[in-house]
C-alpha cells in the first residue's frame, strides 16, 4: 500500500470517529438522565417558573396595596397541612427505596400511604377554603378590604391544590400499575420527583400566602 493510500485511509478513519462522536453528542441521554426522567425534570423546571410567576405577581400586588388584609388568626390548620405534606415526601422516599430493593408489597404500601397523605392534605385545604368562603372571601370579593386578596389567595393555593390532586391520581395509578407488573421502580421514582416538587412549592406558599398574612 502506498503512502498516499495510507494517508487517505487514516483520514477516512478520523472522519468516521468524528462522525461517531457527533452522533453520540446528539443522541446520548442529556446529563446521563433517562428520557422519561428528563421529561419530568423539564416539566418541573417549567412548573417552577409558573409558580414563581404567580408568587412574584402576588408579591407585587401585596407590596403595592396599602390596606392588605391579614385574615389568618390561627396557624394550626396550615401547620398540620405542612406536617402532612412534608411527611408524605418521606413516605414517598421509603416507597421508592422499597421498589429499588425489589420489595413490591412495601413499595405499593408506602406509595399508597403517600397518596392518602395527599388526600388528607387536600381535605384540610378545602376545609381552610370553606372557612374563608364562610367569612365572605371569594375569588372576586374580600370582606376585609381589597378584592385582590381573594384573587391572589384562591388562585395560588388553588393551583397548588390542583397539583396535589393530580399528584394523588398519578401516585395511585402508578402504584397500581407497578403492583401489577406494568411499571418499574424507575416509574415510581419519576412520580416521586413530581411529589417532592409539589412539597417544595408548598415551602414557599406557606410563608408568602399564609404566614405573612397572619393577624397579630
Amino acid at each position, binding site marked *: 500500500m502506498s503512502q498516499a493510500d495510507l494517508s487517505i485511509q487514516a483520514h477516512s478513519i478520523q472522519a468516521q470517529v468524528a462522525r461517531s462522536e457527533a452522533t453520540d453528542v446528539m443522541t446520548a441521554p442529556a446529563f*446521563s438522565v433517562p428520557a422519561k426522567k428528563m421529561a419530568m425534570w423539564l416539566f418541573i*423546571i417549567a412548573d417552577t417558573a409558573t409558580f414563581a410567576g404567580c408568587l412574584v405577581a402576588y408579591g*407585587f400586588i401585596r407590596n403595592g396595596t*396599602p390596606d392588605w388584609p391579614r385574615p389568618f388568626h390561627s396557624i394550626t390548620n396550615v401547620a398540620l397541612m405542612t406536617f402532612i405534606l412534608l411527611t408524605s415526601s418521606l413516605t414517598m422516599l421509603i416507597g421508592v427505596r422499597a421498589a429499588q430493593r425489589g420489595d413490591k408489597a412495601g413499595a405499593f404500601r408506602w406509595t399508597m400511604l403517600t397518596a392518602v397523605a395527599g388526600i388528607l392534605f387536600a381535605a384540610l385545604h378545602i376545609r381552610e377554603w370553606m372557612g374563608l368562603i364562610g367569612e365572605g372571601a371569594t375569588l372576586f370579593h374580600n370582606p376585609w378590604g381589597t378584592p385582590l386578596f381573594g384573587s391572589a389567595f384562591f388562585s395560588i393555593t388553588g393551583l397548588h391544590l390542583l397539583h396535589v390532586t393530580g399528584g394523588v391520581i398519578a401516585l395511585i395509578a402508578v402504584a397500581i400499575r407497578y403492583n401489577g407488573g406494568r411499571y418499574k421502580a424507575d416509574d415510581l421514582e419519576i412520580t416521586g420527583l413530581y411529589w*417532592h416538587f409539589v412539597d417544595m412549592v408548598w*415551602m414557599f406558599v406557606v*410563608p408568602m400566602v399564609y404566614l*405573612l398574612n397572619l393577624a397579630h
Partner: protein
Amino acid sequence: MATAEDHKSSGMGKDLVVYLCILALAAIQFVIAYQSISASQMFVRMLIVAIVEAALALLFFMHLKDNRGLLWFFVIFTGFVLLAMQYGWTDSFRLIDGVPWAK
C-alpha cells in the same frame, strides 16, 4: 466491607435526617411569623429559610446532588427566569409610596 443493604439503610437514615431538618426549618418559619419585626424583615427571613428548605429537598430528596450537570442545568434555567421576573418591583413600590409620579 459495606454491603448494598448497608448503603440502603444508611441512605434511609440520611433521608430521615434531611426530613427532620426540613421539618425544623418549617417550624422556624412559623416562629418568625410571630416575631415583632417589620413585614419586609419577616419576608426576607422566611424567604431565606424557604430557599434552604427547597435546596435540601432538591439535593437529597430529588437526588440532584448526585448529578452535577442536571443540578447546574436546573439552577441556571430557573435562576435566570426568577431573576428576569424581578423587574417590576420598582413599580410596586411606586404604587404604595406614590412618589414621585403616581399622583
